[in-house]
């Protein structure tokens, strides 16, 4: 996958993250994906994808505070970068182009 394009799972993760403007940690993202797309995501797949998105410059992360319900472990909170938002927009345009019917079909020819 080239550096400026999004794979389908990357699109799902980044698109979900974009709807959470204040950022989200893994649990919040997994819950949101499961709720909205009825898809159970493995924490491994999620973190390897977020890692890739970070390397591409589409997301960034910072460590949050440790909490007792996490066994004293810190959250890693992810947010979408400006480059990530641009990539999402570009992918959206591409998908619209691909899924819209050809001009001839629209005109009934």
């Amino acid at each position, binding site marked *: 996958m080239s550096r400026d394009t999004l794979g389908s799972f990357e699109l799902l993760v980044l698109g979900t993250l974009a709807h*959470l403007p204040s950022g989200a940690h893994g*649990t919040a993202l997994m819950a949101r994906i499961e709720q909205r797309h009825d898809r159970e995501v493995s*924490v*491994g797949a999620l973190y*390897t994808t977020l890692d890739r998105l970070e390397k591409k410059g589409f997301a960034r992360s910072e460590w949050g505070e440790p909490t007792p*319900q996490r066994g004293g472990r810190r959250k*890693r909170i992810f947010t979408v970068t400006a480059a990530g938002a641009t990539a999402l927009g570009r992918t959206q345009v591409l998908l619209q182009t691909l899924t819209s019917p050809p001009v001839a079909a629209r005109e009934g020819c």
Partner: protein
Amino acid sequence: MDDRRIRKLSDHGCQSPEEIRATFALLQDLLKDAHPEYRDVVLGQIKNRTYFELLQLIGEMTASIGRPGVDPVGAEEPGADRPAVDRPADPPAPPAVSPVAEAILRFVSGVDSEAVLGDLQEQFLERALRDGPDRAHAWYRRQVRRSLGAFVWRWIQRIALIESLLSRLG
């Protein structure tokens, strides 16, 4: 519970109002036989809490009042003649996955291990409250099994990249 309160409880806005209402109802259920003063203090405390802090509070309460043989809060007071109620067992702890599998997960997930293991534990508690401990245990085991594959693959890719760089250098 009003909408403003639900929004305040929501952590990153990813819980539905139904989930928050259900969790709050669980907390109220746990408190129904508690001493009225204690109940007021606890309900007063949750005003500024997030959803996950609410879950944590439920975990603490089930730990303190739910153990078999331990009287419910307030029930030991003279004259507190309350009917016996079924109380939840101890708060569910993550299942004992193979220590080897967990050690490998910790190793291959590298810098993510703290976040990964924390997310698993946090979601386990949430699912145990929502779906019951059996389903939460099954989910936890499935997550560890599936995540190992993803992390091992990333680890192999990193090793391959390092080897490739070393061979170029020479």
